[in-house]
């Protein structure tokens, strides 16, 4: 479904030198899979996602979507950003409807669909509110509705819940899984589900949500240091999951790899003199 083939990406630093953020990343995500990417902060996770989204082009290597090389914006994907991406000057309803509005849908139709989705994410009473009048969790729900309503096969997520408090965050994770697993239940086939590429620095979150956890090395020249299958059944109860032996075992195994990279990145950042 989504394939990165030896993708590298360079940036020019202000003093004119070349900084290699990503180095030879090859990653295949099958249709309907939920893949999480973990790595120390500053390792280029967001760059990777921006390349998959088509917002950035790789310096070398290629991105293929359903076998076709990606050129420009990835029209098969939605992208949920770490920061607030709702337009502050539009109401929740207009924001959720935006994708359809841009595609030229009639206002009434777009609003009706948006209202359905607002109800689905529990925001029916807040349709006429502006983002500044919503809580952090509500804004995430609205953005989720905005993305999911477009029903595109690929969903890219860049630490979408990292700014939320712990409890809201767990709730949002559950709601995300319900939404994603719900897509599959309709026909009981995994390929009805969306393909998710989820970036996070939180290993617990990665294991709890994903089918596969990919570990990225510390930057510069970040590369993939491991890919771990998460053999936990679905649907998952996130409240119970974290204390199960299988979960703890996986956490320990992946953390052993990730810990080295985190320490490297801390040394590089000058944390240890």
């Amino acid at each position, binding site marked *: 479904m989504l394939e990165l083939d030896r993708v590298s990406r360079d940036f020019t630093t202000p003093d004119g030198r070349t900084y290699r953020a990503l180095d030879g990343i090859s990653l295949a995500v099958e249709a309907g899979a939920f893949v999480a990417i973990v790595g120390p902060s500053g390792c280029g996770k967001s760059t990777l996602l921006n390349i998959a*989204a088509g*917002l950035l082009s790789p310096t070398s290597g290629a991105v293929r979507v359903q076998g076709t090389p990606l050129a420009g*914006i*990835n*029209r098969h*994907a*939605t*992208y949920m*950003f770490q*920061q*607030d*991406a709702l*337009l*502050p*000057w*539009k109401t929740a309803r207009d924001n959720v409807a*935006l*994708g359809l509005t*841009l*595609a030229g849908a009639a206002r009434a139709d777009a609003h009706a669909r948006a209202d359905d989705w607002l109800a689905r994410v529990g925001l029916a009473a807040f349709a006429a509110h*502006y*983002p*500044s*009048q919503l809580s952090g969790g509500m804004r995430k729900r609205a953005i989720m509705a*905005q993305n999911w309503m*477009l029903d595109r096969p690929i969903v890219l997520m860049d630490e979408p819940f990292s700014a939320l408090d712990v409890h809201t965050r767990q709730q949002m994770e559950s709601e995300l899984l319900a939404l994603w697993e719900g897509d599959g239940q309709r026909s009981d086939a995994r390929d009805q589900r969306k393909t998710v590429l989820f970036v996070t620095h939180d290993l617990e979150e990665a294991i709890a949500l994903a089918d596969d956890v990919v570990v990225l090395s510390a930057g510069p020249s970040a590369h993939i240091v491991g890919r771990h299958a998460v053999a936990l059944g679905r649907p998952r109860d996130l409240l119970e999951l974290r204390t199960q032996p299988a979960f703890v075992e996986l956490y320990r195994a992946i953390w052993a790899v990730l810990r080295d990279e985190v320490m490297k990145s801390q040394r590089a950042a000058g944390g240890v003199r």
Partner: protein
Amino acid sequence: MTIDDGRSRSKVLAAQALLGAAVLVLWQALVSLHVLDPFFVSRPSDIAARIVRWIVTGSLWGHLAVTLEGSLIGLLAGAALGIGLGFALARAPFLARVFDPYIKMLNAVPRVVLAPLFLLWFGLGIWSKVALAVTLVFFVMFFNTYQGVRDADRVLIDNVRMLGATERQLIRHVLVPSALTWIFSSLQTSLGFAMVGAVVGEYLGATRGLGYVISQAEGTFDTTGVFAGMTVLAAVVVIVSAAVTRLERWLLRWKL
């Protein structure tokens, strides 16, 4: 928002009224006690009487209308040019760099020296005043629009592009609204500048308008007329800018 705010706001209003009244009373008293010479500073009661007379005889309205018309046309034209070019250059970094020194140079020209030229080019009528107002309004609008567009949140732009926006939709749904904050905050300044442009134009050469009234009064050492003209001008600016504030609050109602 809170009760405390409301109370302190009425307190501020009361203090403001008191301060204004105190200054006027002091002014009046100093003139009456012959400390100040009314020939140079007039006196509040005379100024008020003059304004009332203007209003009663109706001679004020014609001049006021001319000044407002010149200011308004200047404001609209200057805003249209400034916002248009601001947008265009914000979207074309190469052109922005080419134009940059010239725009700064033009902006550095003191407008008063342009007034005689404009009188020569556009005559004693309204258009020389409009031209002067435009040269003042344009730059304020231009710089604010340019900044507003350049300042638009990267994430909002990326998100809307991912949702499928074309370049035009991007401008309409993200860049214009985000520039509006800047444009509206500069509208207050621009409005003041537009009136300055019109009045200075009238002052230097016209047959009607508040600037003309003031200049005529000065020509006959009529300080009461000068102060009365200034008072009317100030009152008009305060009223119009209050209206702009309300418009701004409505347009930017999504901001809390």
